[in-house]
């Protein structure tokens, strides 16, 4: 029942988002037909092209066509190349998912132990150092981290490629090698932010009475924290991680450019550059949908982690 309500909210949000994305594109100045044909195009040819793009029709009709297409898997054709957008979008999306997924793994693997350590030793020097470093790390933009990482591992040490993309089924080793630097540059910055949230969540849990009960049973402080604390600290951390995934998708746009990765981000930037508005519209819609799906998944995961939320929802 509660899940149905959540799904309903999800669909409603998606619908509103589609209207907004469409409206933004519609109010942008510039004529796609003019862009596609150049300045010397004849009025007849322009009119013909507008008709072919379907942009000579009223906006509501254009919108329903577009959304109807999305629902049936038809993403339309590029204004510039004339290619179908759908298949390309699927390929690009897969690439971005790999990147964002790997970056998330990096962020979690780094942030959970570090944040926990910073909390458990918050009165000691080591805890303060970790907090300070994470503060610093959170201030570094992902593309800068990427450039520094390339400088070290690709240019100086020459152990990892500076960019490019190998599909996993073509050459798994080259795929992984190519994934390391972009995932690190995207993930480490997120890890710095996440570390601070893990720290404060664990600090809260450390003050809980049930941790004292765990100690009273005879568990040592670290055992008590791991067995009884971390799972309860997970709920607030998951919220932040869900929000971060949205940031990661946006961050991927820039990092893909730095590392020449053919994902959604570079597709979006290329389309913006060539004013291929229908592609921009599709990519933005896919990104929005991805963020909403992530939030829905986080909501479902809450109830898995925290039994108190099961009855309430």
């Amino acid at each position, binding site marked *: 029942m509660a899940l149905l309500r959540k799904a309903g909210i999800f669909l409603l949000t998606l619908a509103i988002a589609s209207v907004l994305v469409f409206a933004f594109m519609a109010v942008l100045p510039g004529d796609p037909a003019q862009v596609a044909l150049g300045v010397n195009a004849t009025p007849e040819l322009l009119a013909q092209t507008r008709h072919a793009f379907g942009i000579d029709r009223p906006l509501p009709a254009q919108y329903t066509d577009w959304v109807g297409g999305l629902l049936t898997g038809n993403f339309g054709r590029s204004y510039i190349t004339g290619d179908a957008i759908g298949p390309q979008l699927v390929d690009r999306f897969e690439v971005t998912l790999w990147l964002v997924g790997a970056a998330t793994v990096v962020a979690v693997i780094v942030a959970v132990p570090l944040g926990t350590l910073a909390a458990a030793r918050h009165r000691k020097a080591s805890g303060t150092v970790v907090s300070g470093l994470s503060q610093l790390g959170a201030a570094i933009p992902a593309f800068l981290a990427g450039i520094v990482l390339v400088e070290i591992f690709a240019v100086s040490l020459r152990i990892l490629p500076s960019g490019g993309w190998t599909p996993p089924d073509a050459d798994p080793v080259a795929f992984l090698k190519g994934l390391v630097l972009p995932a690190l540059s995207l993930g480490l910055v997120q890890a710095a932010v996440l570390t601070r949230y893990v720290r404060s969540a664990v600090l809260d849990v450390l003050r809980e009475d*049930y941790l*004292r*009960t765990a100690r*009273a*049973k*005879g568990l040592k402080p670290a055992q008590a924290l791991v067995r009884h604390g971390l*799972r309860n600290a997970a709920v607030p951390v998951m919220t932040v991680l869900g929000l971060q995934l949205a940031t990661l998708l946006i961050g991927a746009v820039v990092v893909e450019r730095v590392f020449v990765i053919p994902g959604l981000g570079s597709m979006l930037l290329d389309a913006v550059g060539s004013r291929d508005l229908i592609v921009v519209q599709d990519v933005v819609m896919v990104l929005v949908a991805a963020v909403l799906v992530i939030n829905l998944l986080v909501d479902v995961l809450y109830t898995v*982690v925290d*039994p108190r939320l099961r009855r309430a929802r």
Partner: protein
Amino acid sequence: MLKVDGLNIAAGELPLVSDVSFTVAGGERVGLIGESGSGKSLTASAVFGLLSDDVSAAGSVRLEGVDENLVGASENLLSSLRGSRLAMVFQEPMTALNPSMRIVDQVAEARLIHRTVGDRAAAHRDALRLLEQVRLRDVAELGRAYPHQLSGGQRQRVLLAIALANDPDVLICDEPTTALDVTVQAQLLDLIVKGAKERTAALLFITHDLAVVATVCERVLVMYGGRIVESGPVAEVLTAPEHRYTKGLLDASDLETVDEGGRLHAIAGAVPAAGKFPSGCVFRNRCPRADEQCEVSPPWFGEPAHGHACWHPVGGDA
């Protein structure tokens, strides 16, 4: 079984508990009473070795059969004693259980930590038996529940079951019934006494409720200002108190007599903040009988197990 000698607890330079000494024998039930801020809970936490980082303890806490002083003992030694030979039930049952772990697992864990049982299945069986011992019903079903599905009284029973899991020699209860409805208090007190008796455990029972002390304990220690001001058998201390503070506590809990103004008796003033207690007798700024002599700290009069620290005990002078 438990011997506390010259226990001092301080937060930095600020003394919180001064020179507290007492013993609790196996099978004996001793109450520790006093208002909030008198140092009861700190004393209990020090005995249990779970003081927070910002306070430090000095003095000696000895457990029979352990050569080392528990004050300043290693975490290794303390965690091997906690939950096995030393057990504690805390005040707040609503928040003392892990919200994301099933009840039966939380009880079973107590059996597993100290390797009292070999495997999970045995620990699980023991946990159900322990839950039955604290008179919870339908333990198989209740064990699968999470803490938020239980009432405060049920949760405190679960916590008692955890404390009793490894048949402790010393059971410390820190206001275990204060947060509960009066109707469930009596049943829980009964279970605590029964649990301690069956194991001939030394029970140290902390409360501010004189009626509870009268029900549960044989002997009582009265604390005020971080010191023990009177001790003795419950029947004598509660009927013929000697220290002026004990007298004040008793008068204040008497709901049948009133003063000239028609109001219930109360102790004048409030418990001072830590560090703000007067020199000499800690109670003299609230004591109706205080005089110059009280500016000097009173010595202990009488036996260690039955005496008081008052220059002008009730009925002791004109």
